[in-house]
């Protein structure tokens, strides 16, 4: 909070990111995002991730609705949803979500309903984990920015 905290917070952020990379939750694409953030779009990463979460939420809800329907057979629609999810996940570098989505998608391609249900479960789990981590990351980031904003009036 005194400018000293900035380093600590930055270290925390880096640590968190490192661990996320280690776990394979994120991949280099996320760094791409960060790199794209500049002074003209200072909240780029935050915005993108937020939109990603909004969109993914909708997709997951829709997927769940589709799969919960007993007389359901529209695997193609599921595939489309999953394509979306895979695409956006890989775009933001959410590797694990992407990977489990791919698995889910192959289950849907085989019209394997139990596989799909399991896939959905896993995707949701990964998605929520990612969301939590991102939340934490942004909070740290926010704190760091606040700390960086501390100035002594001189």
């Amino acid at each position: 909070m005194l400018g000293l905290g900035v380093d600590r917070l930055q270290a925390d952020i880096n640590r968190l990111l490192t661990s996320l990379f280690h776990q394979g939750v994120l991949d280099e694409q996320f760094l791409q995002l960060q790199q794209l953030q500049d002074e003209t779009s200072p909240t780029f990463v935050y915005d993108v991730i937020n939109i990603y979460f909004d969109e993914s939420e909708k997709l997951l809800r829709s997927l769940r609705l589709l799969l919960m329907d007993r007389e359901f057979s529209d695997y193609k629609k599921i595939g489309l949803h999953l394509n979306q999810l895979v695409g956006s996940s890989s775009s933001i570098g959410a590797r694990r979500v992407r990977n489990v989505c791919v698995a889910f998608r192959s289950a849907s391609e085989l019209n394997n309903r139990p596989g799909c249900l399991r896939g959905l479960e896993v995707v949701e789990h990964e998605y929520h984990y990612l969301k939590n981590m991102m939340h934490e990351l942004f909070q740290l980031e926010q704190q760091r920015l606040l700390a960086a904003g501390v100035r002594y009036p001189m």
Partner: protein
Amino acid sequence: MVCEMETDQQMEEMDVEVLSSMWPEDVGGTEPDNQFNVEKPAGDSDTLKEVDIAEKRTMADLKRLPDLLNTTDQGSSQLTNLVKQWEYMQDHAVRLLREELKILTKQREEAEAKELKIIEEHNFETEEPENVPVLDESSDLFRRFKEKKRDKLVGRKRIEIDEEFDTVAYWKQKALSLEKMLEASTERERRLIEKLNESLKTMESHSAPVEELTQNLKRAEGFLHFILQNAPIVMGHQDKDLRYLFIYNKFPTLREHDILGKTDVEIFHGGGVKESEDFKREVLEKGKASKREITFETDLFGSKTFLIYVEPVYNKAREKIGINYMGMEVTDQVRKREKMAKLREDNAVRKAMESELTKTIHITEETMRAKQMLATMSHEIRSPLSGVVGMAEILSTTKLDKEQRQLLNVMISSGDLVLQLINDILDLSKVESGVMKLEATKFRPREVVKHVLQTAAASLKKELTLEGNIADEVPILVIGDVLRIRQILTNLISNAIKFTHQGKVGIKLKVIPEPSFASGLELNTDAEEQNGLTETETSVWIRCDVYDTGIGIPENALPCLFKKYMQASADHARKYGGTGLGLAICKQLVELMGGQLTVTSQVNLGSTFTFILPYKVAASNDHSDDQDEFSDMVDHQPEPDDSTEGYFQFKPLLGSIYSNGGPVIGNNFLPHKAMLPSPVKLMNGFVADPSDNTGQSEAVQVENGGYKDEPRLETHRPETAHQYENGNGRCPSKESESCSSSQASSEMESEFTVSSPREDVQTEAEVKETSKQPKILLVEDNKINIMVAKSMMKQLGYTFDIANNGVEAITAINSSSYDLVLMDVCMPVLDGLKATRLIRSYEESGNWDAAVEAGVDIKVLENKQMSVRSTNRLPIIAMTANTLSESSEECYANGMDSFISKPVTLQKLKECLKQYLH
């Protein structure tokens, strides 16, 4: 058994229940071989234990013992006891005899009463005949007889006479019966005598005191043996010269003649002997019984601890004649006790450690709380505040009239003040909770002083002269926590300015010898070593005076000057404002750095705050290094002798501050925020995403507040950029954060092998702008991907149109000409492969028939079927997710020119664009 029974019988006979015996009665030792059986009182069974007493073990100087008994108090009291006991017994016997006598008397009385009765009966019986006296003589005789008979103690039975009264037979009979009565009486008399004799005999058997005493003594002895036979006790008596006269030892290792007549020292050798001897002597001298524990370390019985009780012995003339001594072996107990003590000690130590730990935990908790407070503070106060200040700063860059600008400046400075207050509180809690860490950096004291003064001068609104005076011997470069030192200086200076209305305020620096209070100073060196400064550097003590010609501080206010939230008086607080935290923080900071902060003051003449701090002297030859670390002011005014200049003065500049066109120096002092040239960019960041998310607005705002540093620094730079090569001149307070952030971003860049950092990109973009801006179409259905791609394109300096699916793409291509199409493969409605095929067929045939066949709504297309660019092949780049259905072969087969595998990176995109746009 027999023995016991005998004893019991004896006891019974003796019947000494009243006697308070010295010895328990069931103990006896009458047999010559000293064997006796005792029933154990609280034994587990009825078994009788054979107890063996070996009298021989007692070593005694038999000749001297009676002597002793006779001459000492103890001895005579023993005898007295015995005598008393005997007397009791005699008393008892007398009482018994008396009782016997009483019984006899009673019997006699009874007998008399009976006789009287008989006589009365007889009288009654003889009433009739007697009334008729026939013969005077005879009647007289009879009467006499009768009287005589009454005197006699006999005559109980009524004499039954059957014969007629006064016949011969009658008299005969009467005589007979009387004779019988006489006989009975005689018999009784005899028996009485017998009984008397008997009782006499028993009395005789009781009457021997010596025998009894002997018995008692025997019992006493027996009891003693019984008690002592297994006790680990040594008893003894020593004379005035501490020579043993008598000793009892259960486990004798020495013979009688080895001990008697000798002293301890003569008998034993080794540790403790002397001590015990001294102790005994001491008791003898003081005449007071006492106990002591002595550990012996002798060859004879090894290491043993004895509890020794020694009491002086007096003779009847109250003269000391020696000591009684009793020792008990307590080695085990002592060992146990020591163990206990050790355990207790350990316990205490553990407890102390525990409490220490609790304290640490408490401190940690405090720290956590402080941290919590930091977080809360930042969220609750800082975010809205930075919003306010940020907006105000933006506002200050717009066109304002003089009054508005003044108001705005007040607004900003107030905001800064609140920020300062928060910082103060946080600082304080940080220092107090011990989490404040010092950082060791190289800095130039002269510069620091100058900057502090410059800064103060910039915001000066009074007619004051600010001066700095640095002694020549002060090193050019020292090592310390420059941020904190600056903070202290700033605080003191602003304090001085606040309370000074005319005259001057200044800072004086000089080197002093090591002060006395810091003789054992390790704190600072420790702190610095922690910071990795292990080079050998000489340290120097610098005294810094911050003086003013202000209102001064009354003497009675000095003590509470450094206390928190305290100001010299409530009056001052009202007049001058402030948090009252500043000096407390300064003091704590100075002390944290191993220095001392003091104050001297005279009312109405001014005050001087002095702080003494140790610094390490750094070698001043590495100038290349400090360029980065030091503040912008040097760079702004690169005078050659700046680093060694020892005197600065800042004359009042009143009036220049509020006008934009003031002197150059005034401009320099103005806060940067007043000169922000491009608010648009800031606004841009602020309103970057005006889309749906109202919930985010706060976060965005906050981040914006944090981000505003960057553009300011960047945009500020170009004016003076020619003056210094590396654009690193930054305000030191922001040094760390800007460093870290740039460092962080550079790390990311390096990981990415992006060949050109942002500047290059920008130049590239500029170059692009001069030539014709290529038109790009992005066909993508995924919002996220669009966003990312958009951002990348922006960085690369391109813009593009967006189509959300193949149909839209065809529509777009039809209505306008593009230089490049980036086509997502997997899309709803019409996927990328099909769309490409249709586009290719359109290029070949010049019509959209294929598209119409495929079901694309062509109504709009038909009108503009003949496009100018139909002959040119439109580069279409696929964006694939590299799954089986999106293989590169398929892409090529469908007429695509190239492909970018997803996720798209800046590098890939750049290469691709390079290839197809030139």
